[in-house]
């Protein structure tokens, strides 16, 4: 009798929307493509839907390499949903994307002065697997809206922001600070989880790949 109650309680607490302080939340995830990062992230990968923030000191710090294996895997699914890029800082270079295994016909670029609105539409529509936005600034209220839209459309929202916003509070479910390795011999970055539901507290060092010499 007592055991069945305990079991019921366990089942209740195992619900994805319940997060208990120290335990790792059970979120639906998919692998990042980096074994070290998978081990450190709650659930063992990027969340399947929700909003994450990637903070970098400058554009070009490796923020795209961090997500590229996941993008390639998601764009190769059948039927694949779309991947939307909102206000990327430069043009994505298609031969390099294709070389990393990204299916180009699932990519959609949006250039706009309303990035938050566009990302909310993309996330909410249910047509996108990932919607990435490069936001100069966004209020916590807007980020909260994006988080809700991502959950509604079952999409992964990615916000690329400057490291300067690291001290600001954010409703995103996962915040990642990415710093490139200054050591020229190694092409990689150090990833620290600023906010996560039970992820690693130590910085994780990632190697992209050896640059062709």
């Amino acid at each position, binding site marked *: 009798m007592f055991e069945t109650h305990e079991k019921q309680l366990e089942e209740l607490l195992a619900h994805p929307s319940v997060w208990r302080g120290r335990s790792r939340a059970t979120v639906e995830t998919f692998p990042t493509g980096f074994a070290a990062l998978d081990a450190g992230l709650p659930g063992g990968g990027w969340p399947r839907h929700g909003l994450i923030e990637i903070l970098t000191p400058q554009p070009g710090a490796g923020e*795209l390499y961090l997500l590229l294996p996941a993008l390639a895997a998601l764009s190769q699914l059948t039927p694949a949903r*779309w991947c939307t890029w909102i206000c990327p800082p430069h043009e994505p270079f298609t031969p390099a994307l294709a*070389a990393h295994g990204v299916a180009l016909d699932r990519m*959609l670029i949006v250039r706009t002065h309303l990035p938050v609105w*566009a990302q909310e539409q*993309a996330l909410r529509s249910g047509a996108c697997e990932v919607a990435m936005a490069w936001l100069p600034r966004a209020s916590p209220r807007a980020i909260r809206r994006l988080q809700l839209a991502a959950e509604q459309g079952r999409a992964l929202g990615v916000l690329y922001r400057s490291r300067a916003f690291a001290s600001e509070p954010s409703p995103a479910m996962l915040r990642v600070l990415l710093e490139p390795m200054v050591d020229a011999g190694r092409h990689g970055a150090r990833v620290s989880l600023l906010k996560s539901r039970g992820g690693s507290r130590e910085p994780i060092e990632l190697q992209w790949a050896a*640059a062709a010499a």
Partner: protein
Amino acid sequence: MSVGGRMHPRSYRLIFPEPATSSPGSSATPSVLRVRPASPPPKGPDSQAELKLPPRELWIAAHVPQLPLLAIATAESGAVTSSAPLVVVDTGDRNPRIIDADANAQAAGVCIGMTLGAAFALVPHLDARPRDAARELVLMRRLAGIAATFTPQVSIEAPDGLLLEIKSSVTLFGGLRQLCRQLRDACHADPVFAQVQAQPRFTLAPTALAALAAARAGARCFITDAGVLPARLKPLPLATLRWPEEDNVRLLGMGVRTLGELMRLPRAGFAKRFGVARLADLDRLLGRRADPRHRLVRHERYRGGVDLDHEIEDHERILTALRPLLDELEQFLRTRQRGITALQCRFHHYRAAPTSCTLRLASPEANAQRLQSLLRERLANLVLPEPVRRCELRGGALSERPLGSSSLWPAGERGHAPAGEMPALIEHLRARLGVDAVYGLRRVSEHRPENAQARAEPVLALAQTTRTRHAKAAADTPLPAPFRRPLWLLHTPREIDSQRGRPRHGGALQLLAGPERIESGWWDGADVQRDYYIASDPKGSRLWIYRQCTGTRKWFLHGIFG
């Protein structure tokens, strides 16, 4: 009206072929119980037709009597007030002949086919009008438009006949009689035909020509049984076939005045004297030969407008005022199983010129709710010079809308095919941000980095079967090694400083790999000779830089890794 006429007793047997004695409760449908006449079917050349059960086709013919007069009357908005006898004359001939005459003229002795001179000799104060063939066609097209709501297979039988194949629509409209009644009521309710009190005559027969012939003769005809067709056609006059005048005259000379007498003629002799084409006509009339018709393709557009009670400036209230029009548009599109890809809105003001905005859609759309939400985005960008007094909607050309069932899964659920959401998202974004703001990516088979990629229209079809030549060439181009090319490319290469031949960008750059020479494009004026290097800046970013091989040998930043 012949449509509402009494049915032939045997016709029902063909629609309900089961024997009536199978169940005792079948007495509820007495028409099924009708027993076939005891007499054996008549033997004759048409006895083969008896075996075709049930008929493969059912045709309704509509004949507009006195169409030339109607055309004149409707062109003058029904106000043919002159009491003089009115005739319509075919002016195409050198010797004008009368093709239609009103009751006054006919009472005075004018008959159809008479020359104009002879008619004037009879009635000096005759009002003769030239034939308005264009107007006649407009009237027939109008009638065809009404008929097209009942079946897609509608064709105009020039000049004054209309044919509808309705076999496949019978169940949808709740039976043959229901369908015929609705069709008749729809034609009578049409304002143009009601205004001149013109009533098309309808007939039903298993072959198109038989229905037409009966309609022209003004005969009551509601036949669903190919077997009784010859017997029912027998009394119709020969002229209902509209054969050339010389054939009719020859046949009259042979003593053939009705279709029954025509059917009795021996086939071989008939073909020899009148040609195989006439014999084929006869076979089509009796259903011995297929009679396919070109279906009328209508190029329709939706037009609608609403005058507002008072001037409105608020976008949301304009949208509310547009909603009835959008609902009407949806109804218009749904009955045609079509969608539109362009929609124009015009707003009329008191003094200023009308403002118009056009909505373009990625895929054919018929849903009023979706169109309204797109219009909301579009209107948000629209600046109105003055308050709006009148709104108009004009739909673009109709296009085929793939009919699909709505999805079981909510959007984004696993297992859900994302077919419908993507066009909707693209339209939504484009309605607010403009068409150029949303695009896809494409590879181009090129060595110059700035030409190796291009913007493309997003590919909406999930399985792309036909690939363009360029896409194929790009797909065949070998890919660069993954980390040899940057993920970001600058729109235009940015010049960077150099110090003693070493590039600087926020500090001295460390060259990691290179040079890789790219030299191409001498043929199209955009000649490129560059040595590319992969460099690392002091902050740890990897850059793709190049040095011009000729001229000033300056350094440029062209791409950023990651």
